[in-house]
């Protein structure tokens, strides 16, 4: 008897000991590699971008030399017409793009949610452009918009709308809208899938109940589902917004920001100033990146607050 009690006590003691003693060796082994890697290749470059933004970094004698210039880079930005235009373009895009996408994604999600036939096929097809690289999307649409032989213009001419067959990517007013449209084509499926996911998470009983109370499809959708969908809506909107603020591949290949910077976005202008033009100075584009980082964070915070207060009302 005594032995058993003893043994019991001993077992308890070791267990308590095992619980209180953290396996620090294992924790380090598992977590440290990721954190160290992340610190070297992601965190350090972010901090360095802030540091660069206050400096002028130019090649001299085969290597990069750093001079401190303080706020000069930021002051120059305010006077840089191309930068201001690219900000303007990106903001137009970040407003129009998400609205287009949210309207399409929500409408399609509601239609497909009610188990329309072939819904799996639609989902697969609409999501597919998301997997295709920006280079492919950019090139194909560059050809579709081609003035002489592109699908769009040839089609328009065939139905007698010769006046509408514009040089879509070569004018001052249409290239930005071409970019917005093509990016929308590539990404609306993503928003759609997220909306469907949000809808499917809403318990079915609520809609059944609405049905029994005599609600129509539209009523059930707008009065029951839509309010419950607000958190998903917010997430998708923010993701869509961030997607436009960072988009590079499609713009770069489709228009390259041209003609004459009419479709320049911040992402493409940073690339040009950092690596494209012969005016090599890594400090100036870093300052742009810093400003843009701030704009993205503020934008996300604003959308968040705006929609939060709206849902609480």
């Amino acid at each position, binding site marked *: 008897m005594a032995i058993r009690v003893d043994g019991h006590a001993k077992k308890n003691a070791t267990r308590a000991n095992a619980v209180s003693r953290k396996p620090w060796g294992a924790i380090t082994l598992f*977590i440290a590699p990721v954190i160290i890697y992340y610190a070297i290749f992601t965190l350090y470059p972010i901090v360095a971008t802030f540091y660069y933004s206050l400096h002028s970094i130019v090649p001299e004698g085969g290597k990069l030399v750093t001079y401190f210039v303080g706020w000069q880079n930021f002051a120059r930005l305010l006077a840089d017409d191309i930068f201001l235009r690219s900000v303007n373009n990106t903001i137009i895009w970040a407003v129009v793009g998400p609205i287009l996408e949210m309207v399409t994604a929500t409408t399609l999600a509601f239609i497909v949610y009610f188990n329309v036939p072939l819904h799996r096929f639609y989902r697969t097809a609409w999501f597919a452009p998301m997997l295709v690289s920006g280079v492919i999307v950019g090139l194909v649409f560059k050809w579709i918009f081609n003035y002489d032989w592109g699908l769009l213009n040839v089609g328009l001419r065939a139905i007698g709308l010769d006046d509408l067959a514009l040089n879509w990517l070569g004018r001052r007013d249409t290239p930005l809208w071409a970019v917005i449209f093509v990016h929308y084509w590539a990404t609306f499926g993503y928003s759609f899938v997220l909306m469907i996911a949000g809808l499917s998470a809403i318990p079915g009983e609520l809609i059944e109940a609405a049905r029994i109370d005599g609600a129509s499809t539209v009523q059930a959708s707008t009065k029951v589902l839509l309010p419950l969908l607000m958190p998903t809506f917010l997430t998708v909107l923010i993701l869509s917004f961030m997607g436009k603020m960072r988009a590079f591949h499609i713009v770069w290949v489709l228009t390259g920001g041209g003609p004459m910077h009419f479709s320049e976005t911040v992402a493409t202008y940073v690339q040009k100033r950092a690596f494209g033009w012969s005016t090599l100075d890594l400090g100036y584009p870093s300052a742009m990146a810093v400003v843009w980082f701030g704009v993205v964070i503020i934008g996300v915070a604003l959308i968040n607050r705006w929609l939060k207060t709206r849902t609480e009302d």
Partner: protein
Amino acid sequence: MRLAVLSPQKQFEFGLWWSRIQIVLLTIMLLIFTLLVIIPFVWMLVMSVRTTGEILNDPYGLPNVIHWDNYWKLMFDPKIAFYKYFVNSGIVTAGALILTLLLSTLGGYGFGRRRYDFKLRGALFALLLFALMLPPQIMYIPQFTMIAEYGLLNTYWSLILLYAATGLPISTYLMATYFSQLPIEMEEAARIDGCGDLRIFWQVMLPLARPAVATVVLINFMHFWNELLLAMTMVTQPDMRTIQVAMMSFVGEHGSDYAIAAASLVTSMLPVLILYLVLSDKFIEGMTAGAVKG
């Protein structure tokens, strides 16, 4: 919130909500819409087996003779020789995938299992996820100088190292979520049998997490294969180009050979597209998992 992407509500009969005529009209509209969405793919495919002359004359036409030789020319014509860009992209993608998997499974296990919880773990995890909302522009200029300093410009390593860094946050997040849902009993049983932490991870838990590993492989494969910004910045030597940069440059340099260019788009898209058609659920799950969290 767990995503239920893959199981649209089955409890409604659509007949309850829409009348038969409405269903037919809706289906026609949705099919037309879907056709508009996939036209660029179809056109690309048709273009790739025609001749450039035919395309310029009649972009809507179908090929008279199917020119499979476009693909042969694309790959092995000594002036074009696209196969080497496939090799480059393959090496970079595979290398970055291995590195990402190694780090993210270890990290996901450490972040996901209760046993390894400590005071700052949550904060570290949040810090890691912070990168998900950052535009690449905020870090790629110093990444460039860093790679240049180590003399890695124009090497496979430049892209392998940086791609792994971009894939790490979402991969670790996916692995951690999955590991945190595995039952503790397996882990304890192995521990009573005298297994150490690393052995439990490697021989017991990691095999159980195979579905999450598959998701991580798929989405990272796609991102690494499709990446352009870093690829064109870190690698400027023509022979070292990845497939994406090669396609872009090909159109710049051999601007008028549209049939061959279309063939390059189709071939470069195939690996991802085939995987997607076979495993579309896994793709969608992986790509949306990072979006709806908490």
